[in-house]
């Protein structure tokens, strides 16, 4: 679970997840262009590629090849796991 928290501890990576949650299945090129144009993120493609690798290692992003291109998908399961461990509305002292 610690790799999930580490992956989420970065504003650019959280923004990448926002964009994938809004439109799933994006290429690196599409992610880079929306980050630049919508969010003013000026990171290089190489830097974004490394951010995606961190997210993928944490299980928050999965990739799939379709044709000759690679598409990225948001995987919310690790975040659901956090919510299961500390469910909202359930007090420990009850």
């Amino acid at each position: 679970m610690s790799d999930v928290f580490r992956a989420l501890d970065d504003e650019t990576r959280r923004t990448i997840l926002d964009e994938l949650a809004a439109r799933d299945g994006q290429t690196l090129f599409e992610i880079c262009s929306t980050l630049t144009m919508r969010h003013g993120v000026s990171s290089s493609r190489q830097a974004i590629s490394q951010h995606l690798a961190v997210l993928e290692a944490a299980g928050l992003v999965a990739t799939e090849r379709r044709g000759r291109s690679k598409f990225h998908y948001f995987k919310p399961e690790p975040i659901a796991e956090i919510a299961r461990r500390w469910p909202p509305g359930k007090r420990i002292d009850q």
Partner: protein
Amino acid sequence: MRIAMTSIFVDDQRAALAFYTDVLGFEKRHDIPIGDDFWLTVTSPESPDGPELLLEPAGHPAVKPYRDALIEDGIPLAQFAVDNLAAEHERLTNLGVVFTQQPTDIGDAVIAVLDDTCGNLIQLVEMKQPANDGGAA
């Protein structure tokens, strides 16, 4: 100095000519046999005196790894301007063209990326307002 011609590598020059003319709507300008290949160019009917696109054979060994890496990351090798991206997207999708990026609003423009079936991704761009050319008229 002007940009008169630019080139992309294509897997099969005849298939590329068919895609770039019949599907995208460009017109053949030059088609000159050179050995087993052709010096093959197309232009846009909307700007016949504009730059030519050279459809160059992809036989050089450096071409495949170069293009494979770009396609994997979804990076287009050329950008074409359209007046109405939504209409072009619908027209081309109906012709069986595969888009790796659906029309996306990026602020000043709407962009989309398609597979040219010859080994390249092509970006279509609709500018929302005329580009500022610095005042030259």
